[in-house]
């Protein structure tokens, strides 16, 4: 009995070692997957595009990961991703780092995102100026009555200061001024929408793709947050979404990016709630 169990154990360990080795070998031997990493804003578009692209090109293998714009670009710099997605333009210090490690950053815009300023549906305030938005977020305006609404404390909802959406909002609406420290801070677009939807006095901002019927978008500088307004660059709070590669892409990477930029790819962009860049 003892002998048998010993043999079984040896077999088990051997088997485990063999499986592990086989696994490691196959990972190296198989066609290397294209890795796309970065912005969670861009993620849903890339994910759908990758699925369709792989259906059409069975030999292609694309692995899509989130992590955020900063992570995507950092991964491009340490060469652990083929394509970095970002909801903000690459920063000068990141370009410098890239140069230092011999990476030639290639920027390709793939979509436009409008940042909608949202309030609870019962709120009577329908429009704000960019100045008012800035004053709400920096703490100069604290009550809805100051904006012609019903009296009540404004509950300011922002994104974590390192998210791409925050950086875009900071650049587009805040003039780089600091958000009041007592603002609620959420980790995702959905969480902001959720918080605003359940808080009558709240104001928040989300990507146009995350607008839901449970929240109301206000007009900014007199322009409603619509696709047409964003595409024609009339809506003030809009930004491009980018993919970054090391040098000019080639092979499957290039074909995948071309697919995203094609009519079909841009239709996917639109279906995910962003605005296409077809002019």
């Amino acid at each position: 009995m003892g002998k048998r169990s010993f043999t079984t154990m040896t077999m088990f360990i051997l088997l485990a070692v063999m499986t592990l080795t086989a696994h490691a070998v196959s990972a190296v031997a198989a066609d290397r997957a294209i890795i796309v990493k970065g912005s969670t804003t861009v993620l849903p578009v890339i994910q759908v595009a990758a699925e369709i692209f792989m259906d059409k090109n069975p030999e292609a293998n694309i692995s899509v990961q989130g992590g955020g714009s900063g992570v995507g670009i950092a991964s491009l710099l340490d060469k652990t991703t083929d394509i970095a997605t970002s909801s903000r333009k690459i920063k000068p210090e990141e370009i410098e780092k890239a140069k230092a490690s011999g990476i030639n950053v290639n920027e390709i815009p793939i979509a436009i995102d409008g940042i909608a300023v949202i309030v609870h549906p019962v709120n009577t305030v329908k429009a704000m100026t960019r100045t008012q938005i800035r004053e709400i977020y920096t703490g100069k305006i604290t009550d809805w009555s100051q904006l012609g609404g019903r009296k009540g404390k404004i509950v300011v909802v922002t994104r974590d200061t390192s998210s791409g959406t925050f950086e875009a909002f900071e650049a587009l609406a805040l003039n780089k001024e600091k958000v009041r420290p007592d603002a609620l801070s959420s980790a995702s677009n959905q969480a902001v929408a959720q918080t605003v939807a359940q808080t009558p006095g709240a104001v928040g901002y989300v990507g146009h793709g995350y607008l839901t019927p449970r929240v109301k978008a206000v007009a900014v500088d007199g322009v409603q947050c619509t696709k047409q307004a964003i595409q024609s660059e009339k809506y003030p709070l809009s930004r491009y979404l980018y993919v970054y590669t090391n040098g000019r892409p080639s092979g499957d990477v290039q074909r995948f990016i071309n697919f995203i930029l094609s009519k079909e790819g841009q239709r996917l962009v639109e279906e995910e709630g962003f605005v296409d860049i077809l002019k």
Partner: protein
Amino acid sequence: MSAMKIQRKALVTLKEGAYKWLFATLAFASLVFLVGIVFTLLTESLPVFSKIRPTSFLFGPFWYPTADPPEMGIWPLITASFAVTAGAMVVCVPIGVGTALFIHELAGRRQRAFLKPVIEILAGIPSIVYGFFGMVVVAPILQDLLGIPTGLCAFTASLVLGIMATPTVASLAEDALSFVPRSFREASLALGANRWQTLTRVVMPAAGSGISTAVILGMGRAVGETMTVLMVAGGAAMVPKSLFDPVRPMTSTIAAEMGEAVMGSLHYNALFAIGLMLFLITLGVNIIAEIISRRFRLKLGLGR
């Protein structure tokens, strides 16, 4: 025949040796991980202190890590962690210890058979489920009930964290009670004390330090909890003035910002420094718990 016997004996020796090595390796693996984690925390966090004075890092009132120039004071985050943990203690100590006393001293067999698994299930619920529950159910209810501007605040976080830490406190306190020798109880009852007197004058003092260990370990659980506070506490990096202010504890700051921080940047290092602070706090908490439980074992004559 005898050759076979010798062979078998050699095999047994070999087997024992193999097992010993196997388990020794496994046992030392955790030591390797600990050293690795401490080393990483130190090397990744120390660069912060070459740019920011440790005192202004610890006691600075503003946390704007991505502003230009960045302001990295984690005082709001530290106070938030303490406020939320203290609030959680207020919830989980009475419920946890009370549950333990009831299950161990007062409950009948049927009640015990029902309550113990219920508490274990409570312990098994993933923290993100607590967080979602707190965000979607508890926060709106408290918001309406208390008339506060937002339900995502220190109070809600304390409540949800307290419920989460309750099973830890309850099961450890129950263990402490079961360590009280039967003879203590029997002696007390034999001397004519009633059940209540036995409980409050004999059992509780004897299990006292064990119960304190339970409370302290529950506190460790609350300090280190991440996902729930990320979803429920509101996330405002400000020293709370009241329990109904939104707060941003240390754990949720790391969780929310690590994914977006540029690798190797000052912000990245600062997040590791927050991690180091948390590690030191939980280490302290665990050491205190260990000291107390050691005293407890000595007091009951159970040795080390």
